[in-house]
């Protein structure tokens, strides 16, 4: 049966006095794609940032509850946050390559971890770009600034950059919201291939995308997890009326 990778227990999140996540309970299985859908401001991005503790960086943000990874709560005080963040690769809505070359973008995180062996880095760059489906387009110009790539290429570069770190989990926050259909398709293809080796959580404002790639889908509404189930079930016979209303485009 499915093995649990991440277990979220009674998670509450606040921005100062505003409660942005309300008592979330959710399991994420290993090597699945879990899609999170829901209207704007429903707490989807906030949920992702709780998982790798990027939420720590926002002044006034506060978390209650537990998130267990391999059975250990990541909010224990002795957790090494930098090491934790390395287990998660995160891709944001706007592709944000760092202002350096394609090559340097891919090896950035690895260099930070202290690895500098040139042939090893070369291999890593090829491998990561390959997995992200970008290698063929850039292999002759790895030294040009990453800012010169098109939006779709930049987004795949951002994917390659986290793959180079060999994360266990990949978090994507509306990764294709700014991309054209063909770039979107390329990203979705990469995700399908990647799920063999990675656990993927995909926040998307495009319900069709969830239907296309996700094994399971969770529906968030105003900070609550309304329901989570096999994608097919969510889209054909959801248990909650609110899910049905959302999928029919009644709000959001």
């Amino acid at each position, binding site marked *: 049966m499915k093995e649990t990778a991440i277990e979220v227990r009674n998670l509450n999140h606040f921005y100062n006095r505003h409660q942005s996540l309300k008592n979330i309970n959710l399991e994420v299985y290993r090597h699945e794609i879990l899609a999170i859908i829901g209207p704007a401001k429903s707490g989807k991005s906030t949920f992702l940032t709780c998982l790798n503790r*990027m939420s720590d960086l926002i002044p006034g943000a506060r978390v209650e509850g537990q998130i267990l990874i391999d059975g250990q709560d990541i909010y224990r005080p002795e957790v090494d946050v*930098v090491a934790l*963040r390395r287990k998660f690769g995160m891709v*944001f809505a706007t592709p944000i390559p760092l202002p350096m070359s394609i090559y340097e973008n891919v090896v950035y995180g690895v260099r*930070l971890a202290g690895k500098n062996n040139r042939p090893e880095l070369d291999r890593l760059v090829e491998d990561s770009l390959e997995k992200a489906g970008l290698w063929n387009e850039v292999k002759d110009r790895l030294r040009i600034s990453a800012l010169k790539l098109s939006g779709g290429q930049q987004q795949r570069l951002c994917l390659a950059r986290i793959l180079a770190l060999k994360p266990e989990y990949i978090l994507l926050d509306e990764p294709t919201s700014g991309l054209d259909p063909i770039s979107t398709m390329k990203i979705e293809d990469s995700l399908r291939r990647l799920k063999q080796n990675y656990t993927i959580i995909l926040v998307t404002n495009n319900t069709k995308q969830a239907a296309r790639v996700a094994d399971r889908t969770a529906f968030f509404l105003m900070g609550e997890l309304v329901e989570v189930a096999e994608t097919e079930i969510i889209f054909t016979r959801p248990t909650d009326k609110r899910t049905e209303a959302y999928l029919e485009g009644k709000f959001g």
Partner: protein
Amino acid sequence: MTDLRKSDRLIKLGLLMIAFSAISALFVITLFIFEQGGPIMFKYGLKSFIFGQDWYPSEKIFGLWPMIVGSLMVTLGALIIGVPLGLATAIFLAEFSSRRLARILKPVIELLAGIPSVVYGFLGLMFLIPFIRENLGGPGLSVLAASIILGIMILPTVISISLDSIRAVPDCYREGSIALGATRWQTVRMVVLPAARSGILAAIILGMGRAIGETMAVIMVAGNAAEIPSSILQPVRTLTSNIALEMGYAAGEHRQALFATGVILFVIIMVLNTIANLTASRQGKR
């Protein structure tokens, strides 16, 4: 309707004239300096004027080399002291301090720019000079003293401009870097500083312009001997000091030689300004 248009035209004409007179004033000043200082440079030879080691105006020996070296030494010294300090402060305020602290400190630092230079010179004379004389030797009035005072005087420029350019780096770069497992400091070093590079360069060059042009404070602490100092503990005279010290009594060719000093200073500052503008416009393009 027509009245409005008429007054509009008048205002436009007025502004044009003001702008024109401001620019022509600058132009006239430049022309005047070159007209006064130019001929004597060619009379005694550009080479001996610039590279001559001796400055004895009463004997008509006009070598500006000691002052050129002096200006460059003191400016370099100011940068060595002011830039690391200023940059570190800017990084701290932009990346590591609480927003409240930065909001309080930034105006305070900018206020430092408003203190008259004679006050800096006076403080240097009172505290720094005796300190150097007693602890490091030499007369106290020295390259070192001038560098330290100037280094402090350029801090506001270096801090506020580099702070602005560090803050202009979009937050998404920082988040991207941190999400890749970088620490705050690694993010600053590898992403933020390179991205703010040209703004920081402009800050350094403007600080340099400030240091090379400063006169009063330097005269008070530098000792002003017109010879190339043998160590940083020896006195030094800068180009600006040379003009200010002797203008009061100079006449004839001596006076013209001081204008020529101005010409050299003018050229050096023009070069620095051009570099600053070029880097600033490159920053704008990115």
